[in-house]
C-alpha cells in the first residue's frame, strides 16, 4: 500500500492503495468512472484512454503510482468543458459514433491532439487517433468530426 495523491477531474484525491494497480481499475471500481472502457487490456485499442497532464494515456497499462502528483481527466471530467461540447456536436453532425464503446477514448484522443495542434491536417488527425481502434466507422466520420470541431471550435484550443 502506498499513499497516492493526484487530481482527478479537477478534484484532489488521496488514496492508500497498491501502487501497481491499473489506473483503469481504480477509475472504474473505486470512483465508478465507467466512461473509460477495457477493450483489450494491453494498450492497443485505446478504449481506456484518459488524459494525464493533458496528454492521452492508456489507463489499462498505467500503474497507479505513475499518476502521483499529476492530473488525470476522464471523459466524465472532460464532458463538462466547452471543448467537449464542440467535439460532441461535431461527432453528432458527422456521425462519428456508432456502437460507442471506442467513443470516450476517441474524444480523449481528439482533445489530446487538438490541444497540441489546434489546426491539424487530415493526415495529422489520422495519426493522432491511430492509437484508438474503432471497428464500426472505418474512421472516416471521426476524422471529419475532428476537422469540423477544429473549425467550428476555433479559439477553444
Amino acid at each position, binding site marked *: 500500500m502506498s499513499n497516492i495523491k493526484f487530481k482527478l477531474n479537477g478534484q484532489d484525491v488521496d488514496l492508500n492503495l497498491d501502487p501497481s494497480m491499473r489506473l483503469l481499475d481504480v477509475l472504474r471500481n473505486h470512483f465508478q468512472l465507467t466512461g473509460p472502457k477495457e477493450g483489450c487490456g494491453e494498450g492497443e485499442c485505446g478504449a481506456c484512454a484518459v488524459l494525464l497532464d493533458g496528454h492521452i494515456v492508456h489507463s489499462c497499462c498505467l500503474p497507479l503510482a505513475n499518476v502521483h502528483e499529476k492530473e488525470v481527466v*476522464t471523459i466524465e471530467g472532460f464532458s463538462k468543458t466547452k471543448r467537449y461540447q464542440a467535439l*460532441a456536436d461535431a461527432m453528432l453532425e458527422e456521425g462519428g459514433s456508432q456502437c*460507442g464503446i471506442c467513443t470516450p477514448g476517441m474524444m480523449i484522443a481528439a482533445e489530446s491532439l487538438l490541444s497540441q495542434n489546434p489546426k491539424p491536417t487530415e493526415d495529422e488527425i489520422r495519426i493522432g487517433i491511430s492509437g484508438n481502434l474503432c471497428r464500426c466507422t472505418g474512421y472516416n466520420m471521426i476524422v471529419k468530426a475532428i476537422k469540423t470541431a477544429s473549425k467550428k471550435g476555433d479559439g477553444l484550443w
Partner: protein
Amino acid sequence: MRDISKSIPKEDHVEKVSGRALYVSDIKMDRMLFAKTVRSIHPKAKIESIEIPELPKDYFIVDYKDIPGENYVKMIFEDWPIFAENTVNYIGDPIMLVVGKNKHIINQIIEQIKIEYKILKPMFDYKKSVINKKFTKGNIKKAFVKPFKKVSGIYETGYQEQAYIEPQGFIAYPEGEKKITLIGSIQCPYYVKNAVIVALGCENDEVRVIQPTVGGAFGGKEEFPSVMACQLAVAVRKIGRPIKMIYEREEDMEVTTKRHPSKIKLTAAVDENHHIKGIKAYVSLDSGAYMGLSGVVLARAMIAATDAYTIDNLDVSGDVYETNTVPNGAFRGFGSPQMIFAFEMFMNHIAKELDIDPLPFRLNHLAKQNDLTSTSGIFRDPIIMEKMIQKAMEISDYKNKYKAYQDSSVFKGIGMSWFLHGCGFTGSGESTHIKAKVKLRKDKNNQVYILVAAVEMGQGAKTSLKKIVVQTLDIPSKQVTFNNPDTDFVPDSGPTVASRTIMIVGGLLARAALKLKETWIEDQEMEIIENYQQPEYIEWDEDTMQGDAYPAYSWGVNIVEVEVSPVTYQTNLKGIWSVYDAGKSIDDRLVLGQADGGIAQGVAYGYLEVMKHEKGKIRQKTMTDYIIPTAVDMPRTETVIMENPYILGPYGAKGVGELTLVGGAPAVALAIEQAITKKVKKIPATPEYIMELINHE
C-alpha cells in the same frame, strides 16, 4: 412530408459520446460474484479425471452435472454442449466455471484444478463432412459438352475475427423465487432466452433477457452469447447470487466464433462468343468442433455462387467439415464474403484466360431484372447496376487509372467488385422459423412505445426504427419511446441479423404505425401487433434449394486503389469508392456510416487481417497480433447511395448492413492483382503471399 432519408440526430448520441452509456461490464450488483471458465487445453481428448482443490467458503464449481435441463446450447443442431462431459473437441472447449468473489482467488483455484486427459487424434483437415447441400439450375451436363474453353480456379479464404471493441459478457441474477434474468452483450435476446429455457428445463416465464448498450457485434454476438448465457444461468440456479462473466480479449479471441475459413472450386464452360454456358461451384467450409449455424452459412455461400451475374446452367454443392478447432459462426455477410471473393476473382481470371478485357466480359453477364437467380427464383425488382457501375467508375476515375496501372512497373492497381446481398433470412427462414412479431403500445398520455427485440449495436437501429414509426404516425419524435429490448416486455421480432432489421422489423413497424394512425383514439390505451407474412409469390423449397432464396436483394459496387511496395510487398490503400442500392435509405448518415465501417472490414478481410491456428491453437489472440485497420491504414472513402425503392420495404428500404462488407475483399484483391500482375487466389493477400506470388509463379 419530409424525405425520410434526411439525417436526424442519432438517438443514443449523447450517452455514448459522454461515456454515460452503460455496457454490461459497467453494471454492478450487490453480492455479485465473478465467473471464469476452465477450458480444454487439447484439441481432442477424453477427460479421465478431474481433481478439484478444497474450495474456500463462497467459491463454487459449476459443470455439466449442475445442468437441470439439457446439456446443449439450443441453436439448430443439438451438438454444442454447455459444458463438456467426457470428451473435449477443441482447445477452449468449456469444462466448468469457477465462481467466487475475488478474481485472484478464482485464478488460484483454476491453477490448482488437475484434469487428466487421454489425448485423442484431432482432425484438422477437410475430411469429415457433417452437412452437405446441393442444387442445380438448367442443364449443366449440356453446358459442359465440348466447351470452347474450360477454366477452373481454386480460391481460399482465412478466418476473420469480428474484433468488436467490447468483449463478450453477461451478468445474470436471480429475480424472485424462480426467475433468472440475464443482461448481456447480445444481438438476439430471444435466441438467448430460448437457449436458457432448454438448459434450465424451465418454463417460459422463468427466463428474462435484457439488452444493455452493446459495444459492437458484427455477427459475433449472434449465437455465441447463448453459450455464455446457458453456463451462467446454470451457475445462478445453483448458487442463487448475481454472477458476472466478462471475457478478457485473449479469451474472447481464442474461443468465440469467427468467420468460416473456406475453399472454393469453380469451373466454367465458355463458348466461342466468350459467354459462360455453365458453372460448377463447390464450397467447403470449416465449421470447427460444433455445427452451430454453419449449415445456414453454407446455404448463403452457395446461393451467392454466381454473385451479381446470371449464369444459365449451374451445379452448386457444398460441405461443412467438422474439425477440432474453435467453432465458427456468424459474421457480417454470413458465407457470402467467401463466395463473392471467389467469384469476382474467377470472372477476372476467366477473362485473363480468354485474353480479353474483363470489363465488357463481366458486363455481358451482369444480372438483369426478370433473370433467374442461382436458385431459379426471379429477380423481380429493377436492377440498376449498370448505372451504379458507371457512377463508381466516374467518381474514382477508374478507366484512366486502370489503363495507367496496366504498366507493371508502377506497382499500382485499381480493382472493382460487383455484388448483391439477399436481405433477410435465407430461404423460408422468416416465415417458417422466425415468424417475427412487433408491437406498438400507446398509453393514456398518447406516448407510443416501440416493442421489438431488435438490438441497437451501433448500426443505428434505434434511430432508424423510431424514425419509421415517427414519420408514419406523423407525431413529434419525443412522443415515441424505444427502450432496449427486455424479453418480459417485447415480443419476438427475431434476431438482429441478416440485414433484416430495417426491411423486416421496420416494415412490420411501418404497418403497425399505419394501423395505429388509422385507428388512433386520443387519450386511450391502444395496442397494435403485426405478424410477418411472406409475400405470396415467394416460393422456396428448402430441400432442393429451389425458388426465391430472398424476398429482395441489395446491390453494390466497390472500387479500391492500392500501391504495393516492390521492396516490402506491403499494400497501401490509396482510395475507396462505393455505390450502393439499398432501396431507400432511412437515414443517409447512418447508411453512410454502415458503408464506411463495412468496407473497412471487407477490405481488411482481403489484405490485412490474419488469423490462423496451429494444431488447433489460435495463433493471433490479442489485438497486438490480430491486426485490424487503424485510422492511418484507411484512406478517405467516398460513397454514393442510389435510390431504387423496394415496394415491400418500409419507405422502399432494403437491407444495408452486410452489403457494405461483401465486396471489399475482391475489390482490394483485384487491385493487388493488377499491381503485381499475378493472380490472387487467396485472402488475406499478405505481403508474404504477394512475395510468394511474385517470386515463385
